[in-house]
């Protein structure tokens, strides 16, 4: 298949929107207007890189750090903010909060905040893709399942990859290895340097990519997706990245090694891509300013929308329990 290229300037703008969204949320929380949240600051590249490689028919399962995945998919930041603030116009009517936003209209299914829960459900979504795919469809939809290195220490990781391999389910497992498992560094809970090594033992092909370079992620994801569409088999892509903020806002990161944090701040995916595009002459200072202005305006509009949205009526307490 032909891989449509990723426009690096558009990728940068999308990453900047994700960063601005999460910074807005942190600010709203600081002012007591939104609940605390788990951000994905520093992890914008895997979100934009992988989601840009998907087609509209593909489905996404994600986890508690989902804002990047949703916004990369084109979610409306106003409806996202409204959801986090518990408002009626949020994607889930205010019932999800920040941790479990799903948006059927965007193909974002079943955001799970039980760590590893998305891995258990992904096989089922893959199964329905397989069972319900129309004959003659030359590009049947795949399933992208985002999880972290913490989820990879759960038994469900092994169970999920094993079943997906045995049943040949079209799942792109995306491990955003951000080095942190809540308040515990990955090196404290696993001896291996990454998790992709486990894939081969389960019969799943894998690749590792620089998770702070959205263009590299896009290329790796496109290639993985092409393999999945050709073979019908699952694939594991491990994106090595870093969680630049704490586990849950607010978090002083007192437990984080200062030198390690500094090292990864120098590799901030947004700053690095911007510098590269400026260096290559593909983006001017005016261009950057224009993006910043657009992102700021989008977040101002989003905040105004969320502010204006009413809280759900109290009858919503017991609606949507059963279909």
């Amino acid at each position, binding site marked *: 298949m032909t891989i449509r290229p990723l426009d690096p300037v558009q990728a940068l703008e999308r990453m900047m929107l994700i960063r601005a969204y999460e910074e807005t949320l942190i600010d709203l929380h600081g002012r007591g207007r939104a609940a605390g949240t788990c951000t994905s600051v520093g992890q914008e590249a895997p979100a934009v890189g992988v989601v840009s490689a998907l087609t509209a028919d593909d489905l996404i399962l994600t986890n508690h750090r989902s804002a990047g995945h949703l916004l990369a998919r084109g979610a409306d930041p106003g409806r996202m903010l409204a959801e986090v603030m518990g408002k009626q116009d949020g994607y889930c009517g*205010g019932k*999800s909060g920040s941790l479990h936003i799903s948006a059927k209209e965007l193909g974002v299914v*079943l955001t799970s905040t039980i760590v590893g*829960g998305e891995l258990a459900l992904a096989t*089922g979504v893959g199964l329905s893709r397989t069972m319900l795919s129309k004959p003659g469809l030359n590009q049947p939809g795949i399933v992208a399942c985002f999880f972290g290195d913490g989820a990879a220490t759960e038994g469900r990781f092994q169970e999920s990859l094993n079943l997906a391999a045995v049943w040949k389910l079209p799942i792109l497992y995306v491990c955003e290895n951000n080095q942190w498992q809540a308040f515990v560094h990955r090196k404290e809970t696993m001896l291996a340097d990454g998790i992709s090594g486990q894939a081969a033992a389960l019969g799943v092909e894998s690749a590792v990519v620089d998770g702070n370079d959205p263009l590299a992620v896009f290329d790796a994801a496109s290639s993985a997706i092409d393999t999945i569409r050709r073979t019908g088999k699952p694939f594991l892509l491990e994106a090595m990245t870093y969680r630049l903020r704490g586990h849950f806002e607010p978090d002083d990161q007192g437990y984080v090694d200062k030198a390690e944090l500094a090292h990864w701040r120098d590799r901030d995916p947004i700053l690095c891509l911007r510098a590269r595009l400026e260096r290559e002459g593909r983006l001017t200072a005016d261009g950057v300013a224009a993006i910043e202005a657009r992102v700021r305006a989008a977040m101002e509009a989003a905040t105004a929308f969320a502010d204006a949205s009413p809280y759900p009526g109290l009858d919503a307490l017991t609606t949507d*329990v059963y*279909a």
Partner: protein
Amino acid sequence: MTTMTVNDAISVALAEEMRLDPTVMIFGEGVATKRHDLLAEFGAARVRNTPLAEGIIAGTAAGAAATGLRPVVDLLFAPFLCYAMDEIVNSAGKLRYISGGQFKFPMVVLAMTGAGWGVGAQHNHNVESWFVHSPGLKIVMPSTPADFKGLMKSAIRDDNPVLVFADIALGYSAGEVPEDADAIPLGKAAVRREGRDVTLVSYAKTVGTCMAAADTLAAAGIDAEVIDLRSLKPLDEDAILRSVAKTGRLVVVHEASRLCGVGAEIAALVAEKAFTSLRAPVLRLTGPDAPAPASFPLEQAFVPQADAVVAAVRSLVAEPATV
């Protein structure tokens, strides 16, 4: 009218529903091996063996249900649901609500429960009330082959997760099943025997215990009404209250242990809504707060017996009237 066992009734219901709806499928450990008739008729895509991993089986069902299939999963023995608790309770039961009603979860979880095979506590544990206590689920626990068939059909057609507990001692019990019988609605109790003096409420194998007790009581001139709940959630409150309004006395009989069991709920329901009808205290006859033993006589002693029901009713009838 055909005579068949409970096990056959479940298979017949599955076959009929799979014929009607191509999205119905079944998977679980040994399913394709044991239900070879289904495998022969519907093929290996719709009748699948799985690894021995209840969590991924249930999670796969939840993911598949959310995206267009109607899976039935066989998790074998009820205590194994502990391994699948997260997927059943946190995912299947909650994600409709969390998503603001965007997704539905039309799935069925089958499991064997109760005494009868001497299989010991890790294979024999009546866990139904755990799931009754969890929002978003429906729980069925029938007592006759006809009900198993009719309720399985409803469970498969229902757009919500339904747990069907099959009492192991009933598996090979036979009964008449009308050939043209269709689905039996969830949430409707059956009056197995009409009576004026006392209401015996039960479900699964202890319905038979209550029927035997009612025969003995009838010989002594005490007229017992026997109600088979069939569905524990939704619960047919009207059937219970209507009967107690008539008889003024209630004994609840089940094999699961007493503390926070279904009997506690029924006793509280009657205390709240039919207090003035009561002519005697509500009694519960249940299994003990102990793991189930493997030794056959101990296992039988675990289950409330007909003579205990008779004794309980006699103690109530001897109570002086309170109104």
